[in-house]
């Protein structure tokens, strides 16, 4: 145990004293200031709409002020935090010749990789918690919205899911830093995978869906075809952790939404109903709706870490 704890605390200290972390943190703090400020201003301008919402505090996170809402911002750029914290964690030590020294100490070898992963997760948690606190402070000051207990719970769950989401990307970065000897290669590979999974998969999903079940915009299409098209699109885009994450937090931060599905799949009456009776979904129900996505997200994070773990444990370390 002392091995794990020692590696963990050294890594944590390294993260916090590195320029990389300072820059990352400054950037994120700035963006969250801006988004929450925008959201706050937006809310002030729509006071009557605000009166109707039961959860004004959550709207701070889910309302797009200028460009992106806080939640969208985490979905898009959160992975970068994970990548930046992990892309050189093992191969830098290898290049510096400190890895062989580390594994020839009387500790279990997995203490090295577990310590590094956990230190990354701790750093991610600290970053996210402080962003949420910043925005909350803003919310209190700017619009005078005091969070209800339920809103605090929802924020807490949002934080947990986000930590898992970003930890998945930390796991990917660590995996690449184990498999690639060169730091530049692992950095490039992880960014490439991030761009591919986050942006191209959704595009690809459209292409696949439209080839398999083409929907002609000009004519009235068969309902069955539309259904098929949307289903395929949904299935394919689930390969993207970003989509998974967006789905997983959908009803958590936005209780007015009753489903993670797109409106196309609802009948006209359902749509009317869902826009008429604006009652938020209770927390328990919201959780049930997103549970499959949350589990899938946790699963891919753990699988990714397990692969890194296995490779690292079986790898021969000569330098």
């Amino acid at each position: 145990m002392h091995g794990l704890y020692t590696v963990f605390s050294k890594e944590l200290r390294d993260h916090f004293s590195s320029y990389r972390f300072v820059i990352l943190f400054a950037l994120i703090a700035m963006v969250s200031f801006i988004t929450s400020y925008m959201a706050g201003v937006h809310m002030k301008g729509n006071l009557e709409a605000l009166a109707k919402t039961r959860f004004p505090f959550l709207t701070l996170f889910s309302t797009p002020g200028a460009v992106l809402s806080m939640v969208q911002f985490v979905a898009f750029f959160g992975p970068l935090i994970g990548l930046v914290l992990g892309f050189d964690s093992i191969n830098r030590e290898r290049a510096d010749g400190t890895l062989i020294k580390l594994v020839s100490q009387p500790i279990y070898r997995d203490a090295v990789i577990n310590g590094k992963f956990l230190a990354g997760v701790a750093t991610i948690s600290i970053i996210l918690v402080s962003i949420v606190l910043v925005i909350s402070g803003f919310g209190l000051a700017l619009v005078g919205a005091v969070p209800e207990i339920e809103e605090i719970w929802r924020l807490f769950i949002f934080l947990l899911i986000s930590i898992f989401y970003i930890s998945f990307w930390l796991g990917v970065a660590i995996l690449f830093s184990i498999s690639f000897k060169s730091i530049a290669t692992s950095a490039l590979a992880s960014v490439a995978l991030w761009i591919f999974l986050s942006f191209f998969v959704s595009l690809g999903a459209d292409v696949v869906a439209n080839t398999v079940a083409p929907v002609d915009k000009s004519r009235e299409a068969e309902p069955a075809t539309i259904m098929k098209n949307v289903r395929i699109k949904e299935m394919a885009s689930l390969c993207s952790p970003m989509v998974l994450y967006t789905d997983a937090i959908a009803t958590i931060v936005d209780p007015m939404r009753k489903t993670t599905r797109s409106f196309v799949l609802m009948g006209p009456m359902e749509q009317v109903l869902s826009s008429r009776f604006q009652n938020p979904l209770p927390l328990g129900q919201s959780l049930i709706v997103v549970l499959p996505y949350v589990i899938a997200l946790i699963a891919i994070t753990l699988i990714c870490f397990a692969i890194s773990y296995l490779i690292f444990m079986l790898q021969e370390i000569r330098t």
Partner: protein
Amino acid sequence: MEADKIIETINLTKTYGHQTAVNSLSLEVREGEVFGFLGPNGAGKTTTLLMLLGLSRPSGGYSRVCGLDPLRMAREVKRLVGYLPENVGFYSDLNAVESLEYVATLNGIERTEASKKIHDLLELIGLSQDGRKKVGAFSRGMKQRLGIAEVLIRDPKVLFLDEPTIGLDPDGALRLIDLIQSLNRDRNITVLVSSHNLYQVQKISHRVGIMIDGKMVAEGSVESLAEEKFGVGDKEYSLEEIYMKYFQEV
């Protein structure tokens, strides 16, 4: 005699694909001796040391270090063995004391004991003045000595030193060799040292082993090897002459 063997391998083999790095190596190092491990580049010396530490999985054969199986009891073996790798690296943003503190905590040494040990070790390696200097600013020789201090902090019974004098100036190398000799003499540490500097090896080793292409071609004291190769005579042969003779025969 059995109990005397602190390191023993029988038919230890390591293959990388088609290439055999270590070929049925049988090696024996006795407690309290300095064993010189010689051989040309790529002979398999480093690979052997890694297998003895449980860092590399042997393709076959038997090995024991302090009576323990390095594969199964890797952590216990590492507690007893200090390994100084070929190109030892450091965290360049830590200073010497911090580096030693990190290694001490990894070894589970408690804080107050560690700081006393660190003080003594810095004295021993002659870096007392540079304890608060960043390791990134250390010279090659200082780093090498710091590396020795790092492996000494756990009070090892055995030291594996992989080319410890490489890249050191003649004076620095001499001082390091003297340090190794005194560790062996005063603390009764068994030393397995691999080196290309035959003169230095001859100076400190009780016995040497010559490894060529993964095979141990000779093992014994310098005198006994000389006798084996050149017969008895009144001429004193240097290790260099003996080594070259073996090398040409293979």
